[in-house]
């Protein structure tokens, strides 16, 4: 059940990068949201190195060393490294645990030698299959929880996940431009699964003194956003992807209602909205994550970030060093610019530049610009009678904002897609139970393997 019923900030104007209402301190003298922004570097092992624990550990040792070396080469004050589990690291919880321990060991060395501040996020791979198994009691679930446990014991400071509840529905519906199904798959099923998962994750984190970080709607809203793609792509309308994102905000919020503390996961583009509601520190990724995917919010998305990430970069040599080192440097300078503006007292001016760079570049940036994100957040907390009602309110508010700002240009096709979706949303039942039973009827027929019991329904 929804808990948040008010905003953490009095207005969007209060929100700024580097500062969160509830900063988080962990790792080696590492504070997130306490006044300054830090980089979060996410290295990705080369294909083939996942074959054995030994080769994967060796790969991580190299990647992490390169990150730390570049920090002390150019003066980066502190850094978080994300160990974003490849399947094998979760499947074999001891792999993830030992890689965390090895990373911690390296970081301690650099902290001792140079005073380099640092922290580790372990993001466990959610490889449950909602359309093939009982996701509330499968082997996959057991293993995932074990992986959390081992990572925490190994030395991960922050435990995160990209949970996949409701993906069987949203996958089916995103490519069919079915807003009702997206609302059901993300807003209802996703939220319910998160409630289930995060109770357990928070418990594990507390048991081992780790911080429960956050969850992202990567498996759903990012699918829509990446399929919407750039100006020349025609897979998913950009307006539709933006509505999906608004719905995702209502869903990702659940982690913090269940006790997660942040910093949230970098690829949760919805987290500007989440920060407005919760005041937790957030990780964000924009232009420097072009190595992982293209987006239309390269600057704007940094407007309220507390960690600034590259999303994922495969380990390779470039002229200027390995990719781990190269992207550490790029992030490091991006962050230095933000922190300098903070020291100069001109952070709000920099934020304004970030925002206007992309606010009207695309619908996604538009709804995620702080003032619009704040409005969507308000719609969420004001409609917190059910997961359904707040997710629907988020989408309607996002749609309304898009329709009413004349500076946001749209093609005829995009506008029609939006109007069409809003019409459907308007026609949906008021009560959550009515919506749920309607959707169960429809999607049980359409989506092979969809099992409401997976969501306690």
């Amino acid at each position, binding site marked *: 059940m929804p808990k948040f019923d008010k905003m953490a900030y009095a207005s969007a104007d209060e929100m700024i990068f580097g500062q969160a209402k509830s900063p988080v301190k962990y790792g080696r003298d590492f504070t997130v949201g306490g006044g300054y922004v830090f980089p979060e570097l996410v290295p*990705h*092992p*080369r*294909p*083939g*190195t*996942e*074959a054995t624990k030994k080769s994967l550990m060796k790969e991580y040792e190299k990647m992490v060393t390169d990150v730390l070396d570049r920090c002390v080469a150019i003066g980066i004050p502190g850094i978080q490294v994300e160990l974003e589990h*490849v*399947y*094998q690291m979760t*499947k074999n919880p001891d792999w993830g645990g030992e890689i965390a321990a090895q990373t911690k060991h390296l970081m301690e060395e650099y902290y001792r030698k140079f005073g380099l501040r640092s922290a580790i996020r372990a993001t466990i791979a959610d*490889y*449950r*299959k909602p359309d*093939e198994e009982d996701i509330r009691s499968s082997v996959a679930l057991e293993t995932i929880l074990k992986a959390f446990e081992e990572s925490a014991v190994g030395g991960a400071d922050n435990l995160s996940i990209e949970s*996949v509840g409701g993906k069987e529905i949203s*996958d*089916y519906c*995103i*490519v*069919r*431009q079915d807003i009702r199904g997206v609302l059901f798959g993300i807003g209802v099923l996703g939220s319910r699964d998160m409630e289930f998962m995060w109770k357990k994750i928070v418990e594990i984190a507390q048991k081992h003194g780790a911080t429960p970080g956050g969850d992202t709607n990567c*498996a759903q809203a990012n*699918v829509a956003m990446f*399929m919407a793609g750039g*100006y*020349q792509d*025609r*897979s*998913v*309308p*950009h307006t539709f992807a933006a509505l999906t994102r608004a719905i995702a905000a209502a869903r990702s919020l659940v982690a913090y209602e269940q006790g997660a503390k942040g910093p949230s996961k970098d690829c949760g583009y919805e987290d500007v909205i989440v920060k407005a509601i919760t005041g937790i520190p957030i990780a964000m990724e924009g232009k420097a994550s072009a190595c992982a995917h293209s987006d239309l919010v390269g600057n704007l998305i940094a407007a309220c970030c507390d960690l600034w990430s590259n999303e994922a970069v*495969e380990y390779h040599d470039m002229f200027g060093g390995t990719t781990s080192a190269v992207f550490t440097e790029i992030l490091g300078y991006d962050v230095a610019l933000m922190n300098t503006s903070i020291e100069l007292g001109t952070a709000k001016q920099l934020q*304004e530049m970030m925002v*206007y*760079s*992309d606010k*009207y*570049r695309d619908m996604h940036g538009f709804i995620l610009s702080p003032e619009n994100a704040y409005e969507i957040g308000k719609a969420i907390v004001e409609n917190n009678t059910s997961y359904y009602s707040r997710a629907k309110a988020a989408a309607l508010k996002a749609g309304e904002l898009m329709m009413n700002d004349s500076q946001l*240009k749209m*093609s*005829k*096709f995009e506008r029609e897609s939006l109007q069409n979706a809003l019409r459907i949303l308007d026609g949906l039942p008021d009560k959550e139970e009515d919506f749920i039973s309607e959707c169960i009827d429809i999607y049980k027929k359409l989506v092979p393997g969809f099992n409401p019991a997976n969501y306690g329904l």
Partner: protein
Amino acid sequence: MAAVANFDNIFVRYDLVGEVEAKGARVASKNPALQRVMQCVVEGDTDNIVDAVNEALKVADPLEVINEALVKGMNEVSRLWDEGEYYLPQAIIASDAMLMGLEICEKKMGQSLEKKGVVITHTAEGDIHDLGQKIVNALLRANGYEVIDLGKDVPVDEVVAAVKKYKPVMLTGTALMTTTMTAFERISNRLRKEGIELPFVCGGGAVSLEYVSGFDLGIWGKDASQAPGMAQDAVNGLSWQQMREKWNA
């Protein structure tokens, strides 16, 4: 807050440059019943396709409904998509409608329509992200291929066994992660060892041309929409080398 008077030097909305004027569908049938079926396909109207097909079957035989309405409608959808008037969802729901109609016609005929060929699809071992594969399945089926869907997180052994069993014209593999896509190379090696040659189209997420060009049989799939064209080439007897030359050059 200050305001920006002119965004032209910050970004250019190239998506609005030369916007495609929606001209709608171009095909028509003289037979109003067939016309309605075609309409349902072109509009992806899954609510009315069943009724429309049943009505059409009263005035035309199943093969005619298939060829003159369902297939024609689908061809029109392909054209609208190619020309930028349709987005992927329009193509997907059209396939949905088309397949629903086809099922009714086949039931009426008492047999399945002969398929253009068999394609096996799968998502790599360790990978549960099968949306790409599902799109491929839908597009292949709507274009007349029989799809053997092995699902997601499929072990290498299973893929190899299925190829030996079904003797498909083409195999596809989807992977979101580079660390799961390594299974593709293992599949290729196993197939070669068994003396099997067929085009093995690999795509999705992090799968790159560079990687797929690194092993035999591999052809890089940039986009799900290429699947029907590739399957057609395979049916036409192009070797994997020729297909690689054509699609990946």
